[in-house]
């Protein structure tokens, strides 16, 4: 036991996304929906939803987690990986979690998926770099210089045209061509998550919005038919999902629009990369924490399974910080997830009883399905 028992923070209204923390894909059932955020004292704090399902969260260091539950081997190792992170963001946590899963600590299925995802992300990054080069050619090449649109040209020709485009733009940016090429490579990382050009629909952000849309629509239908308690939960999930989609779509459009003027984007990148990274990372922060609920819902295919999934999802619905309103430029009802939250008491079997190993196995399966 740690020196002091964890204290439930009843009123939890984070102002910023950093304060809300980044979601951590722990496999311990009690830690589902937990988030990590930087802390001056502890390196990082965990924010764990109240297991009773009511309002409030536990804010505690990792050492305090053992007062709430018995973390899995996977989570112990993931905690160490997070402690070593320089920045706590959704993407840095995802990367750390993927490396832990790739070691096999969430089982072989998750290990194979994590290794495959590592490859896919690398390919997406390369593809995004290529698409950024194509966009640069389209924007920089003088009209009439080449009859064939770059996206239809042979790869060797595209390479030549890209090199020429970089040579043309570099002096305007007061950079060497190598620096421009390197910048485009660096930008490929954050932009591959939101998607560029014709790849936009297949990006992680687009996939997440599609999954969230499905969750929004199906839970809205459920809210009509279910009993008042589950109906209330379904309504809350659907409404917060709808608001999240609206906010994420707005920030996604804003971030993708940056590619419409690559010279300006490159110029901003060199002037101050951090604000630009934060702008492009907004959709990720908004969608962060929805992957597990969406997967839980998709995996529950029968009605009894969906009833159970809904009770669990209702505990995990991310709170939307007030900062979201500043990002999207319209009024955001940030109390939605707490106002509609119903207090549910869960049976002893649910998080602490005999089924806990099955829930861990289920969570490990979710790790394998996560993008």
């Amino acid at each position, binding site marked *: 036991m740690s020196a002091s028992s964890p204290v439930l923070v009843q009123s939890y209204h984070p102002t910023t996304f950093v304060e809300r923390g980044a979601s951590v894909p722990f496999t311990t059932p009690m830690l589902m929906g937990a988030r990590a955020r930087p802390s001056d004292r502890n390196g990082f704090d965990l924010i764990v939803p109240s297991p009773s399902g009511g309002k409030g969260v536990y804010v505690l260091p990792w050492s305090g987690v053992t007062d709430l539950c*018995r*973390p*899995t*081997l996977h989570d*112990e*190792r993931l905690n160490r990986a997070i402690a070593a992170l320089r920045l706590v963001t959704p993407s840095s946590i995802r990367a750390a979690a993927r490396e832990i899963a790739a*070691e*096999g*600590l969430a*089982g*072989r*299925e998750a290990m194979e998926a994590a290794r495959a995802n590592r490859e896919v992300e690398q390919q997406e990054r390369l593809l995004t770099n290529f698409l950024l080069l194509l966009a640069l050619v389209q924007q920089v090449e003088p009209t009439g210089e080449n009859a064939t649109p770059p996206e239809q040209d042979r790869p060797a020709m595209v390479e030549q045209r890209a090199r020429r485009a970089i040579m043309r733009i570099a002096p305007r940016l007061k950079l060497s061509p190598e620096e421009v090429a390197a910048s485009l490579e660096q930008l490929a990382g954050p932009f591959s998550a939101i998607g560029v050009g014709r790849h936009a629909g297949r990006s992680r952000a687009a996939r997440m919005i599609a999954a969230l849309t499905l969750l929004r629509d199906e839970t809205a239908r459920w809210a009509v*038919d*279910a*009993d008042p*308690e*589950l109906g209330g939960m379904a309504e809350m999930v659907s409404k917060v999902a709808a608001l999240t989609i609206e906010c994420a779509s707005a920030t996604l459009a804003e971030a993708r629009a940056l590619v419409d003027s690559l010279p300006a984007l490159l110029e901003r990148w060199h002037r101050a990369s951090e604000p630009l990274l934060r702008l492009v990372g907004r959709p990720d922060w908004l969608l962060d924490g929805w992957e597990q609920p969406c997967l839980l819902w998709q995996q529950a295919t*029968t*009605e*009894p399974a969906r*009833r*159970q999934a809904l*009770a669990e999802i209702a505990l995990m619905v991310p709170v939307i910080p007030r900062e979201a309103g500043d990002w999207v430029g319209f009024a955001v009802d940030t109390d939605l997830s707490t106002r509609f939250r119903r207090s*549910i*008491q*869960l*049976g*002893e*079997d*649910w998080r602490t*009883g*005999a*089924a806990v*190993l*099955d829930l861990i*196995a289920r969570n490990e399966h979710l790790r394998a399905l996560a993008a």
Partner: protein
Amino acid sequence: MSAPPQGAAEIKSLQRGLVTAGDAQVRRVVDMIELLPDRGAMDALIAPLRPRLARLRPPRKLRFPRLLFYPLDPLIVPAAQWRRGALLLPRTCILPLAAQVLAAMGADGAAIEAAIEGHTTDETCLIQRVGAPLWTSAAAILADARPAADWTEQTGLAPADHRDLARGVAALLAQAAAIEPLAQTCRDGRALQSAPSARQIEPIIGATATKFPEALPLLLALLLARLPCAGDLLRLSRQAGSASYGQALRVGIDRAVGMTLEQLDGSGFATLTDPGADLADLAGRIGEVAGLLGELGEDSPRPDRLAKIDAIRRRLDTSCRSRFTLTLDEVVTRPLRGADEKPLDPQVLEAELRALRRFDAAARRLGGSEVYEAQLRAAATLAGASDRPELTLVDRARLVELLAGPEAALSLLDAG
């Protein structure tokens, strides 16, 4: 698919095969039978499996009789097991009583049949929505119903049995719309909103005691079977001294508890120790029974009953320990020692171990915690030191985690 079996000998032979089949095979057979437009002799084929089906609860096609009797399922037994005065319902009464209700409901009954067409017993929202008005109407119809001309021919029961059964079913159905949401809440893994749940079950008991006093023991037996409320019922019976139905309640609970224990000691015990049953499924039922025995034992004022409870608990405990030891040896110890000369699949091993752990978590509620613990520790030592080439260090650590917990697993990993 080959033609369905028709002859008695053929059915008997298939029945023998099914009785020894695993749960997954049984589920597949039931799925296939459910799809047949005319089940005919196939119902006889699955008759011996009914106790297992009650445990497995595979989704079944919703039909009018099934929806009508859905809330009463735990009390339904084969006609041969039923006897007059028992707090049970013979399966043979389902179709004739359902036919009476359907005929009396006319167009409303037909509308219900249309509403459930193509749906299954998994769809609990639909069952509650369509079922609630049906159960209420059926209760009113059956309360004063007279037996149909072919009652004895259809059921093998005397005409006088009709009144008792129809009234009993009416009493239960009159409360079904109130009981079903509570049962659903428990099935979902949500606890009842007010624990103890006495506040929720007291009006159900009160209404039955007023309208169908003779059926109160039957209702209490149903509540015991459907809700984890044994302790609440016993407390209510003690506190209801001043209520008009206090004495009836005490007698009713005594009979319901007696019947429940009798069931557990008889056919229920066979189901709980079924060697063909899936270990994880069995664990759920054993957990429920252990909880029930615990509550009944805590509050029972009768020494003979306490002795009976203790005897059932000890018998079940012995059976669980033996099953655990055998399974641990079969799925963990022998494969880790390479005794089977079969390639070892870590994922299969983990899944089997998880089912075993679920089983021991439930079985410990009956006793023997230190015995399970010692065997698990020994197996963890074996797993940690295993030199099976199929297992990496991480695989071994995960096995140790399942057997002895994350702390031991972390130590192994850190040392490796």
